[in-house]
């Protein structure tokens, strides 16, 4: 940008009015493009609900689907919290050599696209997996869904809790030790109570992920139905009424549950009044700790890691049995594949750019509390709504909203859907990063004669550029991975994950090799972008 333009912009930034306009613009975008469409979309078609209410069998199916969505999410989140917490402990408190390895391994189910997880889980537990050697397998249905959701929500807990444990000030534990407390007692009376906000956040994220995930769940559901599966089935059958009903219910219930847990969670009192020194000393002993760690690692290996990476076998197999040639030459079913990949990446790029440009001002408003305490809290909550709501329900609503205008091409509807779903990630990451820069630094820079935009360019951006970059990468990856909303919205266009789901459901004649290879390409490109992220992190931390 030329010097003169920059200077003009800098000057403008001192001007109260122009600053206000910029912020108002970003809030306008948030409200009218991100928040309102999902709400209005459903309301527009609310009349169709009558279709379902009159059909008893359909209504029962719908009710069961909704129930199971929440039951599974709740059960999985609880189980994950209990079983993944010791893993987070091992990673955070272990010595650094092992820590990085464990951290990377535990991250795998989080960073590979859910379609990869779904297919890998399917192969591992049913079909030709290692268990078949022992004589039994888990067929598609509720148990397989539970295993899948357990695996992909596990790393969410680990990630959040490792962060919390590392940021947590160890001095409280040291203080407890000087007062004579042993390890178990300290964990129970000091560390966990202090980490409660983190535990609640981790639980809610795992819960949200389970509630929302569509693509992989469809792959392993068989004839079983939870919310997202039901909606997809209804869409395939062309029944809009059930889609509206279940989406609407999912949205209302999920927002309520989240609010309740958010409000009541902090009030849960853990029993702190008595300590049984003898018992707790035994629980703190080396032996107990080793047993606990051993069990944790075993569970991780069997139920999380193995099912996630199993897909590499058939993928490698595809390299030798001729599938790869078909793939690279675009023969048969593969012709659609490369188109779908291109579409996925284009949508990803566009959605990311929109998020960065419109999300940054909102992140600043939240981080610096420019609007005052109350308004900031409301803004913060509003920004969080898209991840609370299951993506498929969001997609249904957005589809109705934008289609009612008639003129918006399908590509852009999908882009807006992706933008909405990934908006929260970017804004929250940026807000946290900006909050980490003491406001004093900006203030001092201004007193040295810097105009606000210059302060932003010269101080904030250099100090947060890692976060901007990682926020963008996460947004991009999440978009490429997205199945729920895209399934609901797409009519003629198919993104790569949606295409792969249709291959697994045998809508199109794809062999296991085909699917494995298709997924492998998707995973590799995801990995490439996340590897870039890791490198930036590594360089930054030096």
């Amino acid at each position, binding site marked *: 940008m030329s010097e003169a333009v920059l200077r003009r912009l800098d000057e403008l930034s001192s001007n109260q009015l122009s600053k206000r306009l910029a912020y108002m613009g970003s809030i306008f975008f948030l409200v009218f493009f991100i928040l309102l469409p999902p709400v209005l979309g459903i309301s527009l078609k609310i009349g169709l609900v009558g279709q379902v209410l009159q059909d008893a069998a359909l209504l029962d199916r719908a009710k069961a689907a909704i129930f199971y969505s929440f039951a599974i999410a709740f059960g999985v989140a609880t189980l994950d919290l209990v079983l993944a917490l010791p893993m987070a402990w091992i990673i955070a408190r272990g010595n650094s050599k092992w820590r990085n390895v464990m951290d990377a391994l535990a991250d795998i189910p989080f960073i590979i696209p859910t379609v990869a997880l779904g297919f890998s889980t399917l192969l591992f537990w049913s079909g030709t997996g290692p268990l078949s050697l022992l004589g039994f397998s888990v067929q598609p249905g509720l148990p397989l869904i539970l295993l899948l959701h357990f695996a992909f929500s596990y790393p969410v807990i680990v990630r959040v809790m490792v962060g919390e444990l590392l940021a947590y000030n160890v001095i409280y534990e040291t203080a407890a030790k000087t007062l004579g407390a042993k390890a178990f007692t300290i964990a129970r009376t000091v560390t966990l109570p202090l980490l409660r906000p983190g535990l609640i956040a981790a639980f809610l994220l795992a819960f949200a992920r389970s509630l929302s995930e569509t693509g992989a769940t469809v792959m392993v559901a068989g004839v079983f139905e939870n919310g997202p599966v039901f909606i997809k089935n209804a869409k395939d059958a062309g029944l809009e009424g059930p889609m509206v009903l279940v989406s609407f219910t999912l949205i209302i219930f999920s927002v309520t549950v989240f609010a309740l847990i958010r409000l009541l969670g902090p009030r849960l009192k853990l029993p702190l009044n008595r300590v049984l020194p003898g018992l707790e000393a035994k629980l703190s002993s080396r032996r107990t700790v080793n047993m606990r760690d051993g069990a944790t690692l075993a569970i991780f290996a069997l139920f999380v890691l193995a099912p996630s990476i199993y897909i590499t076998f058939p993928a490698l197999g595809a390299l030798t049995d001729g599938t790869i040639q078909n793939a690279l030459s675009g023969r048969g079913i593969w012709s659609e594949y490369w188109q779908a990949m291109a579409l996925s990446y284009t949508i990803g790029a566009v959605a990311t750019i929109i998020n960065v440009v419109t999300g940054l001002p909102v992140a600043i408003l939240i981080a610096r509390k420019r609007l005052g305490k109350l308004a900031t809290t409301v803004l913060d909550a509003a920004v969080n709504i898209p991840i609370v709501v299951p993506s498929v329900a969001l997609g249904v609503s957005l589809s109705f909203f934008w289609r009612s205008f008639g003129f918006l091409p399908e590509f852009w509807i999908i882009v807006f859907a992706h933008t909405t779903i990934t908006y929260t990630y970017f804004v929250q990451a940026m807000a946290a990063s900006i909050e980490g820069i003491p406001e*004093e630094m900006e*203030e001092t820079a*201004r007193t*040295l*004669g810097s105009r606000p935009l*210059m302060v932003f360019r010269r101080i904030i951006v250099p100090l947060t550029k890692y976060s901007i970059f990682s926020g963008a990468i996460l947004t991009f990856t999440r978009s490429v991975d997205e199945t729920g909303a895209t399934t609901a919205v797409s009519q003629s266009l198919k993104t790569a994950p949606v295409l792969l789901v249709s291959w697994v459901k045998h809508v199109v004649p794809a062999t296991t090799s085909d699917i494995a290879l298709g997924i492998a390409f998707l995973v590799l490109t995801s990995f490439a972008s996340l590897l870039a992220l890791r490198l930036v992190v590594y360089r930054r931390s030096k």
Partner: protein
Amino acid sequence: MPSISVRNLTKRFRSLKAVDDVSFEVRDGEYLCVLGSTGSGKTTLLRLISGIIQPTEGEILFGGVDVSNIPTEERNAVYVPQTYALFPHLTVLKNVAYGPLSKEVPRPEAEESALKVLRMVRLDARADAYPNELSGGMQQRVALARGLASGSNTLLLDEPLGALDIRLRLELRTELRRLAKESGLTVIHVTHDQEEAMTIGDRILVLRHGKLQQHSTPFHVYNRPGNIFVANFVGNSNFLEGIVENREVIGSVIRLRENLRVNVADVSFEPEEPVVVAVREEKLSISPRARDDKENRFSGEVEAIHFLGEWTRYTVRLVNGDQVAARVPIGSPVKAVAVGDWVSVSFNPVHTHVYESPTIGLQRELEVY
């Protein structure tokens, strides 16, 4: 023309008045120390003057001009927070050059003058280092250099020496003042350290709960403290409660507990008024118990003797039950006095100050900062 004028300045945060109706002037080239404890409003005052926050009421004038509509970046008053706020991603040189660069001075020129200032603070050798590689004392000097290089004529320093070791504080104190005076700057230096304020301030402004207590030279603040708070906060004072017995032309007699009588130089209170008499610890003399009674000489038992290095502090319980402390310089120690001995404590009426008895009681008044 005063460099900075503050008139009836008030800042409210919800129901709390952080700064309460404060008015004062800072002369061009003056080194003003604002003295107060945490919560006294001194930081808020600096932030108001620099424009980082806006006042609720009142006005601020720079060189006679009202600055309420002038944004921070145009006020030309550099704010140095307690944490220094050095930009971690820029070298020392680039940090110091930041001010001129912001004002569109071409880079080579800006860095040239930055280097010059770094030479003044003797850090030119570390120009290419990053802030986190420097010690606390060095970081402080970089922050100062950054302010000096900005070309501004006003520095607002928030506890500039607070984060440093006591030794370093003593060394850098006078250097700070010297640099400011050499560069002809007007400085407002906020601190909670009253010795610091007295050593380097041309004048001191004492704040408490956002209200101005006294604004005067160090000599006046110390020797004519305007109220109990200042008498207590600056230096070490004894406080004795009593009632005015009678008032003459040249002084009054105050009746303390158990009818112990004290002569004071003050004549502003009427008989029967409850008052508090303040006398600084170093103005009390201690000697082995004397037989005869003289004016302002009282007997008491030594309860404790504390060695403070330059001073020795004697805590004495007077015959009437009041407890006082006397400081004696190590250069002229009191001979042969031990804990449990009876001594005579005396002081000159000229060194007393008399104040209205506080409505919340003396004890509470002294506790609340």
